């Protein structure tokens, strides 16, 4: 009934929500983000209509996914790109591994890709002896600290500069102050030679353009541009839902992604790559491989009601406003994609019964839906997942409890009797409050039950007649 994932989530989120240092770090980081986001959002002539347009662009692509994927593939292949279609994580990993073996690759440099986290690529490559380095600063920090990204856009958001300094000292032997400038330069100096000497560069893709056969990568650091410029082989990993119809669609999607994701008007580098080095060009990789990954996205696609969850552009805006995320922390989810959108899609990608508990990790405040730049109906989908989980596998004690509740409330005499019994026994509740004997301990462990009033509404009404 309770999966281990659910138990872990309860345990970890319980612990994190009492961690005041964690709360202060997250509050500070997201407070600064909110100010910048609001400032840039207010510059739009019409932010709401811009969201609607983005949502329509993604709707068009996702609802004609076969057509646009084929168009993109055809255009990419025409200019020398090899496109591989992977049904699942295993197929995607195997493709990258056999390519590395075939080309006698030794060292690999990566720029940020959540899809690679999803298919656990680093672990598989490292096991085979490849030197794999994450070049995005945040990803590099969590890689050194041997933990998964905390947040799908800000991987090391939970760490303070002091902790990062310690990680660098422990793993790299660097001796710097805890100034962000100095710490950043440590990573910069290590990485520069890696771009030039790595045999393979692995990147993600924020968008795939059907019309012109390109991928688009959004970043601030320049590490993705370096990763896709110098190594002889460039491999990009992309979920099948990332395709958009036209190149010009980026004119609205890029600023929306930047504003929702990082509070910026546009990020520092937005790069469109349409193939390996072309005739007449002076540099760029000799080979470009695009791995298209399904990994159960087609199951989510088959759920028409929740299909718009595939519109997601992974900006992380819903995480940044979510009270559950802010208090439970990104690691408690135990998923590749954290926060509200992660709670919606993980049950589809990894099994509804194992991950249904995430649908209840919500206050249903609707902030996620309100900030989503592509208008995904996130908080309603959490409700849809709850409904689907119960329809698929009803919980026997819940059925009995609700049946009992409906009998009691439909029968005034029984309801009155219940209240009377409650009044007698509630004063004794403190004896078992929060213990294993307490039938409502999930609530009473950390909260009080309201007291049953001495006079019910009906009694008060009667006395006034």
């Amino acid at each position, binding site marked *: 009934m309770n999966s281990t994932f659910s138990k872990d989530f309860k345990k970890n989120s319980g612990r994190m929500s009492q961690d005041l240092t964690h709360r202060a770090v997250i509050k500070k980081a997201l407070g600064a983000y909110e100010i910048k986001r609001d400032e840039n959002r207010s510059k739009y002539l019409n932010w709401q209509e811009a969201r609607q347009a983005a949502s329509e662009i993604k709707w068009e692509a996702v609802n004609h996914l076969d057509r646009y994927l084929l168009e993109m593939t055809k255009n990419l292949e025409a200019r020398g790109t090899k496109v591989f279609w992977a049904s699942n994580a295993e197929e995607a990993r195997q493709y990258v591994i056999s390519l590395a073996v075939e080309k006698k690759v030794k060292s690999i440099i990566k720029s940020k890709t959540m899809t690679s986290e999803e298919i656990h690529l680093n672990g598989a490559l490292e096991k085979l002896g490849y030197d794999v380095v994450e070049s995005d600063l945040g990803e590099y920090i969590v890689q050194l600290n041997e933990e998964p990204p905390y947040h799908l856009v800000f991987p090391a958001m939970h760490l303070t500069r002091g902790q990062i300094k310690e990680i660098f000292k422990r793993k790299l032997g660097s001796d710097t102050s805890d100034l962000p400038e100095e710490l950043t330069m440590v990573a910069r100096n290590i990485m520069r030679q890696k771009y030039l000497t790595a045999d393979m560069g692995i990147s993600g893709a924020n968008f795939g353009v059907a019309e012109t056969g390109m991928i688009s990568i959004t970043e601030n650091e320049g590490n993705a541009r370096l990763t896709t410029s110098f190594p002889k082989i460039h491999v990009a990993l992309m979920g099948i839902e990332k395709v958009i119809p036209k190149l010009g*669609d980026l004119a609205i999607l890029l600023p929306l992604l930047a504003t929702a994701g*990082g509070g910026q008007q*546009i990020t520092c*580098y937005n*790069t469109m790559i349409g193939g390996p080095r072309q005739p007449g060009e002076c*540099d760029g990789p000799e080979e470009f491989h695009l791995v298209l990954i399904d990994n159960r996205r087609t199951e989510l696609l*088959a759920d028409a009601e929740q299909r718009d969850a595939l519109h997601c552009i992974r900006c992380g805006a819903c995480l940044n406003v979510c009270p559950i995320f802010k208090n439970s922390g990104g690691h408690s989810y135990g998923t590749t994609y954290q926060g509200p959108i992660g709670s919606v899609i993980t049950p589809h990608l990894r099994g509804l019964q194992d991950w249904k508990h995430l649908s209840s990790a919500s206050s249903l405040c609707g902030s996620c839906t309100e900030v989503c730049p592509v208008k995904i109906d996130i908080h309603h989908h959490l409700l849809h997942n709850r409904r689907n989980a119960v329809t698929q596998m009803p919980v026997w004690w819940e059925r009995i409890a609700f049946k009992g509740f409906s009998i009691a409330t439909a029968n005034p005499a029984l309801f009155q009797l219940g209240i009377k019994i409650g009044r007698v026994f509630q004063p004794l509740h403190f004896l078992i409050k929060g213990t294993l004997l307490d039938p409502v301990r999930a609530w009473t462990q950390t909260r009080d039950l309201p007291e049953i009033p001495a006079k019910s509404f009906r009694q008060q009404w009667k006395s006034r007649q």
Partner: protein
Amino acid sequence: MNGSKDQILARIREALRSPAPVPGNHDYSHLEMTPSRPKPELESFRQWLPPVESNSENQWDLLTKSFHALKTDFGLLESKARLIDFIQELQRAEQWKRVGIHHGAMTDEIASYLEIEKLWVDEGYDPQAMEQCDVGISECDAIVAQTGSILITAKSAGGRGLSVLPPHHLVLARTSQIVADLPSAYELLYKRYGGNFPSMISFITGPSRTGDIERIVVLGAHGPKKLTVAILKD
């Protein structure tokens, strides 16, 4: 070898047999299954994005504001002589010893006034030699007033590496290259390259930066620590 192409396409087609509700409509009581308005097009984006006036003076004001906010250095230069002064002054101040550069109308002219070692990238180059360059000098396709972005391609800016590996990227441009907004920049790309796009196109908006440590902005994460735009008045 293209993997599970047919299986994935079959699953997609099967999944799409049931229609999805129209986007952005969160009221499930009256479901429409096809959008009632036409697909949004490039020129329609202007009515929602941050506004840009058509007057070139206003565009210049907007651009300089963006440059200041992004910490992009720039100079508006009245004549070719002033442009050369501007660059020679930079060379002296930063004591450039080696410069990475590509052939182009503006770059060729400037190169003749820079009496230092030059790495010409056009016929291919050694990346380790580029890593030793103090500056990468390139041209660009356009400058976007709306966002303060420099639009480059592998064709206009000497390939992929020149504008991102050296610690300082110097862009040479003309005022006539300033376009109003992102939709105009994409219109320009279609017009200039439609059918045969360079393998890399990039919007560069300020020097490389990161906020990964406590969300504090640090310039020069992996790409150039400094971005300078020298704009010659037409």
